[in-house]
């Protein structure tokens, strides 16, 4: 295992990418690439919603930047228990008149792993196939991370850094 997590049981490999754009001394933000795909979950989320919801994306980014640099990833800034009680799936709160939902995994006030999401037009996320699938995928990723932490393959340090054995080169977007 490098800076990755793999679960044979769940048949999935994940690789962490650090989001330097939001990370600061109060909280670190990451996203994941699943099964060696070209794009991370968050990159896909941004791309999918860029044309229709740029302002909402920007609002979320501003909030994440503030969390990273001054407030930390405090509990009330997230809608908790979006998955089950045993996982770390939460949703990033946006203004009530906004419909874009971004799901993430939160580890204390210092580490957030961003997943995907989409437009919430139904009362619950379970009623929307896209949102439901985003939450289910994050639940599986949460299980992989939990297992890797238990096996000491991944360590989250006091500052919120996800520490793995291998350091890889920067991600080239194009």
């Amino acid at each position: 295992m490098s800076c990755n997590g793999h679960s044979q049981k769940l048949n999935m490999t994940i690789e962490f990418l650090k989001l330097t754009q939001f990370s600061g001394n109060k909280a670190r933000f990451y996203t994941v690439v699943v099964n060696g795909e070209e794009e991370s979950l968050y990159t896909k989320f941004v791309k999918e919603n860029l044309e229709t919801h740029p302002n909402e994306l920007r609002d979320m980014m501003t909030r994440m930047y503030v969390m990273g640099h001054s407030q930390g990833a405090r509990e009330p800034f997230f809608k908790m228990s979006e998955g089950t009680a045993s996982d770390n799936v939460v949703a990033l709160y946006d203004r009530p008149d906004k419909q874009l939902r971004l799901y993430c995994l939160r580890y204390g006030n210092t580490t957030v792993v961003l997943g995907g999401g989409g437009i919430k037009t139904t009362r619950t996320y379970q009623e929307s196939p896209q949102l439901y699938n985003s939450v289910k995928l994050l639940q599986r990723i949460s299980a992989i991370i939990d297992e890797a932490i238990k096996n000491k393959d991944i360590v989250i340090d006091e500052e919120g850094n996800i520490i793995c054995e291998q350091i890889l080169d920067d991600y080239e977007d194009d």
Partner: protein
Amino acid sequence: MKTTKKDKNINALMEGITLINVQETEMRMEIAACLYDAIIKCGMTPHSFASRLGISNEIIDLWLSGTIDIPTESLYEAESALNTDIKFPSSIYV
């Protein structure tokens, strides 16, 4: 560790965020954090505090999310209900 510092879409959106956007967002989130800390310090949960204040759980969750401007009047009511001086950022008193 790989990073996404070269992601064009993220960077383009980030470039559209102004200092004013950041300062306003930070203020909202800091006020929410101060209120949350005060509630916890008083041995309550946000929802038990909502009940004491006579507001819904949805409203207190919204206040504490840091996504909206909480009316100053409501902040005074909250402070009074907690019977404590909350150390809000000084600029809200201007």
